[in-house]
């Protein structure tokens, strides 16, 4: 993901406890540690990512999100982060409940399926979109749910999840210019700050 989500540091208290679900090589946690002196932990299952976290001094816990997060107590973190993972989970709505149980606040990011490129791909080619944000063939993709930011907000409403902040990201042209007037058409990545 080449979208800069550095702005989320404004949503996180200095020296707070942060859990990053699917932390990759730990880059985000390192930058939050450097800027906000947070106490961060990352969950990860990819061996190479884990190795690089360990080498860089990031607290990394080898644990599979899909097998539950019951080992984490209620409100044991100030912020739970989950970047570009929601669409790959078996039951996203249940995981949302879980992360809002563990974290007082949550930050989630996901690819917006409402972007005009995916719409056009499906409309005109009649094939499932393979784009920069969703770069897999339908039969072999980690992304098993496709939804737009409007779908996500409907889910939040239904499950009484408060949206504290939202930020729409787009790097491409003309997406970058047009995402403000027409967010669902031009947003590539949606970023939400949530609480319950």
């Amino acid at each position, binding site marked *: 993901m080449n979208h800069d989500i550095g702005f989320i540091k404004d949503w996180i208290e200095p020296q707070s*406890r942060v859990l990053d679900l699917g932390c990759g090589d730990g880059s985000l946690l390192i930058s939050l540690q450097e800027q906000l002196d947070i106490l961060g932990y990352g969950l990860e299952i990819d061996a190479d990512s884990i*190795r690089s976290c360990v080498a860089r001094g990031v607290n990394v816990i080898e*644990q599979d999100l899909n097998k539950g997060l019951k*080992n984490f107590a209620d409100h044991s973190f100030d912020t739970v982060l989950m970047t570009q993972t929601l669409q790959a989970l078996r039951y996203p709505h249940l995981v949302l409940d879980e992360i809002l149980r563990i974290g007082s606040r949550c930050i989630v990011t996901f690819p917006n399926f409402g972007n005009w490129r995916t719409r056009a791909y499906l409309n005109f080619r009649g094939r499932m979109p393979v784009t920069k944000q969703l770069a897999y063939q339908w039969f072999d993709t980690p992304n098993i749910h496709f939804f737009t930011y409007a779908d996500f907000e409907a889910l939040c409403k239904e499950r009484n999840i408060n949206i504290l902040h939202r930020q729409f990201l787009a790097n491409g042209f003309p997406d970058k210019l047009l995402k403000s007037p027409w967010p669902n058409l031009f947003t590539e990545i949606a970023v939400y700050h949530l609480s319950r």
Partner: protein
Amino acid sequence: MSLENSNDRRDPEGSVGHVTPQKLVVEQPLRLACGIVLPTHTLVYETYGTLNQSRSNAVLICHALSSNHHAAGVYEDDSKPGWWDHYIGPGKAIDTNRFFVVGVNNIGSCFGSTGPTSVNPETGDPWGANFPPLRARDWVESQKLLMESLNIDCWAAVIGGSLGGMQAMRWSLEHPDKLLNAVVIASSMKLTAQNIAFNEIARRAIKSDPDFCDGHYLLEDKVPLRGLALARMIGHVTYLSDELMGQKFGRDLRMGDLIQGKTDPVEFQIESYLNYQGDKFSDFFDANSYILITKMLDYFDLAREYNHDPVAAFSHAMCNFLVISFSSDWRFSPSRSQEITDALIAAGKSVSYIAIDSEHGHDAFLLPNQRYQDALGGYLSRVADQLEGVAP
């Protein structure tokens, strides 16, 4: 087919080479957890690598139930390398080019340090079964006396597998300012009922040997070899996984066959292997030490004095932690390591947890494994970088 024999075939590269054990007579009295005071005690230990000028690069290796101070390298008259030679040496995960590594034989054991085979100065006879009961904290206190005699103020890391991991955790609570890192491998905050059950079966096996003589076999000039071999056979089964035993031995026969109409004796490979392991073990280990140390394992309960709350216990720790488990380890299962990790996270301590896929059961912590090596090596390499001022 012996697992241990595979050591002999390994590439000698990266070995610390010839090593010589050293002996320390600690003149300071050691008050044990049971209240008994050892006025003096002897510790046998080995060191590998060089202590740096600021004496900050020392690493303590804590052994488990049956091993000892000989963790790496070889003796001049014995080509079998130390028990953790896969992981200790120049360029290895515990890199002796960067760390000063200390392996010590703990009290109550039987490799030269004070234990049941030593002479009780009050009676002039071997302690035997009268050796005082020990707790993991007694090992920690005795290791601290060794640390002081080596003029080391703080360990860069205390590392151990199984019972060794218990010592590393105890170190972090008893002397939080005396270590920067604790590496806890295939360990647990306390044994399960099943663990204790297996230990008791092993102890019963030893005590049932007529040569045990209520633990005073040395005075009678006897050795309960059969009982100790049986105890080890039971233990050994619990250190391996069903899967690995199936792969290595299956139902292969060592002699005879199972064709009907034959009366020749039949022996499975696994029978022969286990008997060999048991006999080999009883030749070098002491039965009273086995009883003493298995009890020590049973008694260990990290959070007992912290209201049985592991989070409260770990809140006293000041070091960083690395926790490692192995998938097929059913003696100290990955869930036990996950519990340690969860408690450390809840206590706000720095911790990484690596769950290694391995078919080798509990023994995996002693055996070569690339991911294990990478995790341990990667973690310690950063520790060394920090000591050398290269990493923040």
